């Protein structure tokens, strides 16, 4: 997905991530000891059935949520040592998001949605950069429309522009094509790849979509809150090119079965 010509350095390091949630009177372990490393400019797909802990892992990696145990280090900064304000500032500086349900602010026009993170970081040429990004996602003509006046694909393109506006080093995408039809989803993915390449951003994408996962450098399979296998290589549609790694503690059956997802 990226050309990986630059020297890869570790951008994100997660160790022993555990997340427990209260479910009625019981406690549910949603993630159970996940370790992960993400390099600069790398694309990582997180796959798994519903309830496997994909979105929870994404939330923890992005500093949206706090683990019950373990730690995440982004760009050398341990998230465990940060309070809510510190996490917010770190996200503002390093992280971008794309969500399945777009999560655009309904009161703001497309242009204002893109402008917002730039205003927060105090970028000088925010307006110019916004207009360039809207042009790049093909929405210059729709810049002054509100989200409700845009189609799903257009909204997701606005969300992409917003995510890339502050030039984040890490982009987290949660089912970015989940609410889009096939053709629109394809176009959004192409755009995302292009922007990622231009900005040299590392991408962590949670998806059910094999087409999305196929574009990743690595595919991490989760089941019941654990990593059951990691696939290296680019195209899951060409299984022979991919190589499955069974992490410590996972069974070979589960690794095989997950790797064929």
């Amino acid at each position, binding site marked *: 997905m990226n050309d990986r010509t630059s020297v890869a350095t570790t951008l994100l390091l997660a160790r022993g991530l555990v997340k427990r*949630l*209260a479910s009625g009177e019981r406690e549910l372990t949603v993630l159970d000891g996940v370790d992960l490393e993400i390099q600069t400019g790398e694309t990582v797909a997180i796959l798994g059935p519903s309830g496997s802990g994909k*979105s*929870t892992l*994404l*939330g923890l990696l*992005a500093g*949206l*949520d706090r683990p019950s145990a373990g730690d995440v280090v982004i760009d050398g900064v341990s998230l465990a040592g940060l309070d*809510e*304000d510190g*996490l*917010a*500032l*770190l*996200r*503002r*500086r390093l*992280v*971008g*998001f794309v*969500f399945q349900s777009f*999560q*655009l*602010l*309904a*009161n*703001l026009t497309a242009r*204002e949605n893109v402008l*917002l*993170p730039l*205003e*927060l*970081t*105090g970028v000088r040429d925010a307006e110019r950069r916004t207009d360039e990004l809207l042009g790049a996602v093909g929405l210059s003509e729709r810049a002054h429309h509100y989200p409700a006046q845009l189609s799903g694909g257009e909204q997701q393109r606005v969300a992409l522009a*917003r995510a890339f506006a502050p030039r984040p080093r890490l982009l987290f995408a*949660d089912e970015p094509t989940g609410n889009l039809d096939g053709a629109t989803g394809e176009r959004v993915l192409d755009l995302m790849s292009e922007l990622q390449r231009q900005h040299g951003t590392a991408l962590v994408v949670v998806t059910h979509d094999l087409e999305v996962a196929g574009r990743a450098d690595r595919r991490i399979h989760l089941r019941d809150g654990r990593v059951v296998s990691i696939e290296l290589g680019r195209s899951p549609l060409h299984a022979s090119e991919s190589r499955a790694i069974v992490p410590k503690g996972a069974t070979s059956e589960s690794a095989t079965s997950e790797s064929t997802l």
Partner: protein
Amino acid sequence: MSLRTLFALVLRESRGARARLGFLVACLAIGVAAVTAVAALVDGIRASLSADARGLLAADVAIESRRPLPAELFESLARQTGVSTARVTELSAMASAGDAARLVELKAPEALYPFYGEFVTLPAGLRPGALAEDEVIASPELLAGLGVDVGDSLALGGHEYRVVARLEAEPDRVDFALTLGPRLFLSPAGLERAQLVQFGSRVQHRVLVDLPGEPDPRALEGFVGALREAVPDGRSLTFKTAADPTPGLTRTLRRIEDFLGLVALLSLLLGGAGVAQIVRLWMESRTPAVAVLRAIGMRPREVALVYFVNLIALAVAGCVLGATVGACVPKAAAYLMPELVPQGLDFPWAAVVRGMILGLATAAGFALAPLTAVWRVPPARVLRAEATPLPTPTSVRWISLIALFAVVLGAAATQNASLRVASAFTVGVFVLAGLLAGGARLCALLAGRLPRGRFGPTLRHGLAALARPNSGTSGAAVALGAGVLVVVAMGLIATKLRSEFLADIPPDAPSVFLVDVQFSQSEDVRRLLTEHGARGIDRTAVVMARLSAVGGVPVSTMLADARGRARWVLTREQRLTFAEELPPSNRLADALAPEGPDAGMDAGTDSLWRLAGVAEVSLESGFAEELGVGVGDRISFDVQGVPLELVVSTLRDVDWATFRINFFVVVEPGALEGAPGWELVAARVEAGDEDALQNDLARAHPNVSVLRLRPLLEKVSAIVERVVLAVQALGGAVAFTGVAILAVAAFATAARRAREAALLKALGVTSGGVARLLAVEHALVGFLAGALGGAGAWVLAYGFLGFVLDLPGLPALWVVPAAAIAGTGLALVAGAAATAKARRVPPLVSLRG
């Protein structure tokens, strides 16, 4: 986040704020209008008083006493260069013409009166000091009352006087003071001719002083201070300066401002509760947006600041509207009540600023707590709607609570001069809100415990909604309950006040009082009374005296530290009487153990006098408390030059409501023997006989003043009616705010209602069924709020009337069920209006989530 970014975000967030703006304006405008109106009215009256302060006094300084002013005073004044003086003598007397007689307020000033202000007569140009000794200037009411005109004659003290002019304006008489009768001016020589001033008569002596140039308040104070020191007994004289020409009125205005100011503030605070509801609703609806903002890196305080500034911008609209309406109230009041509110008042800028600041502070204070919801929104909500809410930091929670308390206390302190009253008000508001919230919570808990299976589905659903956690029931019940509480409590208090003051004279109480009856006239006055069918004739000797020492400490020493009422108590002319036994309508509160012939008697006996060989005095217990004396202490009087030392042997509680003659000071018979005095006579005369009695008395004993209780009560009633009207107008404002808040509370749950309505319809409930389910829920909340508010109002009114106003008695209990029914009705109407849209939501919505 830069300021520019903040304002850009605020501006963007304000889109689609029309609904919020409407509610905010409704909630805030009424309270701000009430606060502004009260301040504007009081400021207006005060400004009109100070604008012509010298005119209101007719001088720079006035020195008054109930006794002839000491010669040393005039000597001291005469020694000062450039100082002019004019003596003024005032007293009440009867004037008559033909068969008609009226109690008049006589005023006899010297030639230089008035130094300032306009004295206007028709025909113009006459001055009272320059009148011949048989000429008078009469007010239009007196001319009408006696049926005479300019050029006709009237009798005063048995002498004929010719009315040479009609009085159009008198500078130093404030119209809204309660006066005993119409004005009649004559010259000092004319007053002497009437021979009305006799030893012991109730005469007001005054000297008006004109100082050179334009003395400022400091110079006036200096002048007065020097004069007090220079004149023996100077501390017992009353000094008024142009800096505060009407101290009594100033005090009254202050009290009105303090009381009505707090009532108006209640309306504003209820508005604040409405603001809190609006913000809560707003934050609920913006939760997804807050999650996104937090996810893309905005800190919670930055997000909260965006919403806070937005809210303040909207609140400005409500405050401007409210302050504008409030500023117009004095104009309307001047038109409707010209005798109370002066015309041509300036625009009340100070009141408008006060209203705006209090309105904005209230909006800010009440908004902070619901704004803390921003801290609870987890950024992870962008991934999972059910993400666990984060805890609000303790510091944020405390800051929002302290800010709210500070705003209420600050507002109360602004509205009331006494920090003690402001603190008590603030604590009271929080306690009441806590009790209402507790009551609502308890009711919700009970509703949850009820075996709902026994009820039909409609009532079951309503009860379930009431018991549901975070249903917003307690917030709505507190807001509406507080509105009901304030309105009902003020209604109960106003009703009681009105019934107390507007009540007719009790059947056995006297209806006329005769003042200044000389001992020599006593028998003939009694005969006249009997001839006119008077019953219950009660004659009491009165001797005027002045306190000279309390507990051995001279009053002149005590005055150095005494201010306000304490000074008045020490310096006023005391009316002393003597009696053998405890008067009716009196009860002994404390007494010395009996000595002498009565020794060995039970200490609980009603005997007024306890000691042998010592002159004793019995004091009314409140008066004794003000003097700081108890039984066994000694107090001394100066009885028109003769010293008299007395031992306090008993204290009495007096029932003043009987209208009988009662005295603060009752002296043991014998102690006042030979002292010059007069008789106060009270009697019950039928209304139809009062005119004839008054006329006969005026002819036979022109020095005797006849005070008729009925017209006096009518005057008091008119004033009380106006106060009640003002309180009820404010009560109405409070009620309106309460209803607006209720509608807000109902709207607050409209979105959830819409989803539920869609689901219910999908499950087969008809539109009518959905409407009934919602109506039951609203009715239950309204009933709960009404009942809690009504019960709270009953308790508050009982406490306030009994313990603060000393008007014991249970308020009507029916107000509690009536308030519950009214609350139900209001909630039904507001709820139906608020959920009209939600009820129309199609069932398909439930499938789409």
